[in-house]
């Protein structure tokens, strides 16, 4: 994973609530065995609407997406995160995110920034004309108009993102602890291993 410390630029003022991962990337795009190229199918049903933000040249190439409550709900498909990356989006700002999406986003170096609805509403306004700046180190979102909003982020996730750490590699560094757990499990609950099919 590439280290990330800030995201800045134009933002898609999308704003919708309960955006499910079927909207982000419909199921017919899930038949791929690669992580690449999913931007073509991203927000397909939204892009069928005239005047949608994703096809508005004013916002082309924006690295930030602003959405409503419960962004990324529904299916666990990580293709949703891959599709955003393929569109060039590396940060999403919303009042809340689904648990699985925020985990998938994190694993792919996408910042999920949780801000109160009033702050999101303000950023939606700013996004129509100006750029937005997200700084991970100071955990702030700022605008050219002196707006300054702070956000919370899990300290472990912050470290991983800023250092671009490989989580599997980190866990494999704890192989001894895993082996010790497995040994204790076989002693205490030997029946936990499934009877071979």
């Amino acid at each position, binding site marked *: 994973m590439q280290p990330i410390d800030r995201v800045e630029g134009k933002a898609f003022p999308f704003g919708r609530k309960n955006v*499910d991962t079927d909207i982000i990337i419909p*199921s017919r795009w899930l038949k*791929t065995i690669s992580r690449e190229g999913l931007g073509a199918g991203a927000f397909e049903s939204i892009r069928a609407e005239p005047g949608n933000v994703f096809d508005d040249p004013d916002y082309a190439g924006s690295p930030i997406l602003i959405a409503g409550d419960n962004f990324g709900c529904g299916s*666990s498909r990580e293709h949703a995160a891959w599709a955003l990356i393929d569109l060039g989006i590396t940060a999403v700002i919303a009042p809340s995110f*689904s648990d699985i999406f925020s985990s998938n986003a994190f694993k792919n170096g996408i910042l999920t920034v949780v801000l109160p609805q009033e702050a999101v509403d303000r950023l939606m306004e700013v996004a129509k004309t100006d750029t937005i700046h997200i700084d991970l180190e100071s955990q702030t979102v700022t605008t050219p108009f002196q707006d300054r909003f702070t956000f919370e982020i899990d300290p472990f996730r912050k470290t991983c993102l800023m250092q671009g750490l490989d*989580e599997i590699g980190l866990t494999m560094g704890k192989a001894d602890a895993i082996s010790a*757990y497995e040994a204790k499990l076989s002693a205490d609950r030997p029946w936990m291993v*499934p009877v071979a099919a």
Partner: protein
Amino acid sequence: MAQAKTLYEKIWDAHVVDQRDDGTAIIFIDRHLVHEVTSPQAFEGLRMAGRKVRRPDLTLAVPDHNVPTTPRFDTAGKRVPIADPESRAQLEALERNAPAFGVPYIDATDARQGIVHVIGPEQGFTLPGCTMVCGDSHTAAHGALGALAFGIGTSEVEHVLATQTLQLKRSKSMEIRVEGDLPPSVSPKDLILHIIGQIGAAGGTGHVIEYRGKVFEQMSIEGRLTVANMSIEAGARAGLIAPDDATFAYLKGRPMAPKGADWDAAVAYWRTLKTDDGAAFDKSVVINAADIAPSVTWGTSPEDVVPITGSVPDPESFADASKRAAAQKSLDYMGLTAGTPLSEVPVEHIFIGSCTNSRIEDLRAAAAVLKGRHTASGIKSALVVPGSGLVKRQAEEEGLDRIFIEAGFEWREPGCSACLGMNPDKVPAGERCASTSNRNFVGRQGPGARTHLVSPAMAAAAAVTGRLSDVRTLT
């Protein structure tokens, strides 16, 4: 005296491999289900890094999302190739990856094949008190047996394959206590739809739900699976129901469940898996069962639930401005007008299936309504897709297939099918489906498709009348 713990806390505590000061823990994963859609990139990741699957013995792979539900063998007994080249490539990738990494694999032509969340319990792969994951959000279903089960993304699939663990933070706990008894003809599906309607599609975000109350104690395991399955539609990654004698009776003798002395030791352990008196939940919701009617969704979020006796709501009736805007968009997409009674909404398609409602009890409930009846003239397609080959076989032994076929339904092979339309089973744009699945999202059953979520009995009632209907008026 030890501190009182919730069921969730007990399972969590029994699986901590390593606890960090910042609150993140390495949690051991006892069971990993793998299917063709969310695994190819994970296996590829292992290959690129030169990593192996740490515990193939705790892993089980089966194709379900893409598989066509038409016959898998032709009349000459030859395997029918999959027409869609992309689906075929994805299925072939799993067929290659499972043996290459030593993962047990149930092939699409095996009698045991089916939807991951149907075959886990059916094979006894799912056990109470285990931690269980799958690259699919409806993994929550297995919580019906008291397993801490949740959906994960592909990076996490790769993490579990490589380490048999996940790095997680403990969730909050939420109790949903249902008081009283369900009225007649109100099913577990109606109950969970009602609950989602009450707490909202994000009501359980950040929480693990525990369903409590005598309704669940009296409910069959199939019914509990329907309820726990849709926890994710309320935003909760997992939903739990404490294991009891019904759970043990369901699991006893299943092929992959413990046997002999192991069985006795397992049951003794499982009996400790309940929330202690006095344990605290972070959030608690009380639902009165007597308030619930057969339910149906009107919009494009599973929280858009009304009783079948109700009407399409007026978007202006919602207090929240963003919900008003969303409701109007939903009505436009669904082609519905505020104030229309739901029981006057015509449907063209019926889908009975999915990991929510494709088990034997679901098929029995639908067949009971369809017996001696036929689909209405406006019905263009009516599909029954059993959740597994074993469900299909049992239904055939009970003669349910004849009832469906005589009523004008197609009796299909197992898979996820029209729940998400990755295989050829889709609902055409602008047409309406009464579906026993779990999501009424925009485009879920095909681009432009309009989905109304209902119980199996309600889907059967809609098939007979050609419109959304109160099953109580038919029985």
